[in-house]
């Protein structure tokens, strides 16, 4: 019986998250459209509201082209790795008090592990397509993920030190319920590092080098089409949502808000996550792309020292206070 309940919960969560993913694309296209003096999708449904569904149907029925030279099993498997790891990390995210599938003690580490695994999907996709652009995209992605996983992890060490836990629910509850007790203020350096590393980790502009359209055609997804392409696409958006959730949980006080919303406790959580996603989109509309060596320079020479400094300051603060 318990298993059935869990499966039901998982199914509900997946459906809701996938719907959110579909409409996150709509959200992005509309916002970017209005930022770029155009309308965005307008034709399918009222103001293009059914566009994500039409896109889903289209990519589902599209031909799945597999290049003749490709390493077939890996080629077929790579998008699945990406999507599954991203979906798995949703399990430990608390959307509201008690609204979490698996309330494990090492929630934060689990999410890092999953997002590192997802990069295998990208690298294997680049390798298995047996095309030069995808290979370069895969290599870039590998270097980028390794470089930015470190500042991403280090930037959250301060949060772990303050809350004394890796459990995401504990991190939220230890921040208290008021605006001023959010970890954003004591951890402002950590938040800065986290935000930049988060952009890089999710391959968003200005760090979208693995799929840099004007350099590598489409990077590691060049040879993919139809539903397999859509899987990568979904994985990218779920990745964005997971990273935005971590940011919300670790720095913005999770589901806590100015007042409680009856019957729908995750309201503030979802609002904050969409706030993050709005920032992602805004940055995409504004900034050019970094070059490969500049990306490495930023990661190793600026973000990692800053994150270490943040840990040092947090440690000093803890010693002085206690």
């Amino acid at each position, binding site marked *: 019986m318990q298993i059935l309940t869990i499966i039901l919960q998982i199914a509900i969560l997946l459906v809701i998250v996938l719907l959110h993913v579909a409409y996150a694309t709509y959200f992005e296209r509309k916002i970017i459209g209005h930022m770029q003096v155009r309308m965005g999708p307008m034709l399918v449904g009222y103001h293009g509201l059914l566009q994500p569904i039409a896109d889903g149907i289209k990519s589902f029925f599209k031909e799945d082209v597999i290049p003749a030279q490709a390493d077939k099993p890996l080629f077929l498997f790579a998008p699945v790795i990406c999507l599954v790891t991203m979906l798995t990390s949703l399990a430990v995210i608390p959307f509201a008090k008690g609204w979490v599938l698996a309330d494990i003690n090492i929630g934060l580490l689990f999410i890092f592990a999953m997002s590192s695994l997802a990069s295998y999907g990208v690298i294997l996709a680049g390798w298995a397509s047996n095309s030069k652009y995808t290979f370069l995209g895969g290599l870039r992605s590998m270097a980028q993920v390794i470089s930015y996983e470190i500042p991403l992890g280090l930037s959250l060490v301060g949060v772990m030190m303050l809350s004394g836990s890796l459990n995401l629910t504990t991190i939220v509850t230890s921040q208290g319920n008021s605006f001023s007790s959010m970890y954003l203020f004591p951890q402002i350096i950590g938040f800065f590092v986290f935000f930049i590393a988060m952009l890089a980790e999710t391959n968003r502009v200005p760090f979208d080098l693995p799929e840099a359209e004007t350099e590598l055609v489409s990077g590691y997804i060049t040879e993919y089409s139809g539903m397999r392409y859509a899987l990568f696409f979904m994985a990218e958006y779920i990745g964005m949502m997971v990273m935005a959730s971590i940011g919300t949980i670790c720095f913005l006080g999770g589901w806590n808000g100015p007042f409680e919303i009856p019957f729908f406790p995750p309201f503030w959580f979802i609002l904050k996550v969409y706030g993050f996603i709005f920032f992602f989109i805004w940055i995409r509309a504004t900034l050019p792309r970094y*070059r*490969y060596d500049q990306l490495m320079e930023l990661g190793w020479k600026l973000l990692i020292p800053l994150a270490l400094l943040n840990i040092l300051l947090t440690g000093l603060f803890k010693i002085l206070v206690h």
Partner: protein
Amino acid sequence: MITLTDTQTIDIPVQSGDEDRYHLKLGPQHPATHGVLRVDLDLDGETILTCDPKVGYLHRGFEKLAEHRTYAQNIVLTDRLDYIAAMSNNVGYCEAVERLLAIEVPERAKMLRVMVCEMSRISSHLLWLATHALDIGAMTVFLYCFREREVLLELFAELCGARLTTTYTRLGGVRQDVTRSIMKKLDKFVEDFPACIEEYETLIDTNRIWLKRTIGVGQVSAEKALDLCLTGASLRGSGVDYDIRKHMPYSGYEKFEFDVPTGETGDTYARYRCRMEELRQSNFILRQCIEMMPPGPILGKDAPDLIMPIKPANKLEVDVPAKNALITLIEDRDVFMEGDIYVATEVPKGELGFYFISDGMGRPYRMHIRSPSFIHIGALSTMGQGVMIADLIAIIGTLDVVLGECDR
């Protein structure tokens, strides 16, 4: 002879010292090569060891075609050279033929030519800025530029019926006079445009990532730029003050007041600044055009009647094959008809030159086009050596090439 079955494989011999190199054929179908440019790259990781541009995918044989068509018929071909700034090509071609045949152009037509030239310079530079920024990753500039470019293209359509392939000039003048509505719309554009330039600049001018991606990238010294035969803003960015409009004025450019912006460093950012300044200068010239536009005919008395189908016998005879066509002017006089001539004009991309050898017939014996894009692509192999892929894309963008003009 080797026949291959399914099970057989062939070993492609690898040249010694070549094992670590990664060969990448960038293009001809690639989002950032501005058409059908192919660049053969040898990579070491992301660093380019050798860079070898290959052209010719858009070759249509215009120079040969021109030998079988009359001077007037060839105007149509020039639209298809640099299809982003077709007006400038029309003017460049007609200037050359008119000097060959000593045809006088009335003042109003000259001024109209300057006007459309500067309009096409703005529209070409806008497209350059749009794609250059997009290549470097700034997406929004692209759409902002197209918003303004659309106004100009609509004006072209109103003026001559086509947005891109304009065929606006005629030997000895232009095809259509401007209407009051065109002048009103142009006036509004000229009024609004400086604010638009500032809008683009707020997006990228001091953007740290933009600066990092452009400063020091594709640097060419003034001597090197002259050696590479760069012209236009690509040369002026290196600090060489060379603008045909200023130094060898044609079509009445000497009457206009404008500066020739030059850079100092010769890198991608300097060229970017140059072209942005040129946008302002072109806008200023347009303003002067609107104010100084003289009245009068738009087609010279002297011009061969090539606008309407030919009726009278003393006009250009098109009934006979073009091979035997004769240029006949309205006034019976001696014209320079045998020999050769090279006439260069300043188009948005650089120096566009037309070289004619005439044997006195109504068609060129030989027409050679000195297209700036072709020569700029030649500079790519020098400029692209030792840089990263992302920089190569920026360099292709900053050279401002159009493959239609390069391959002809």
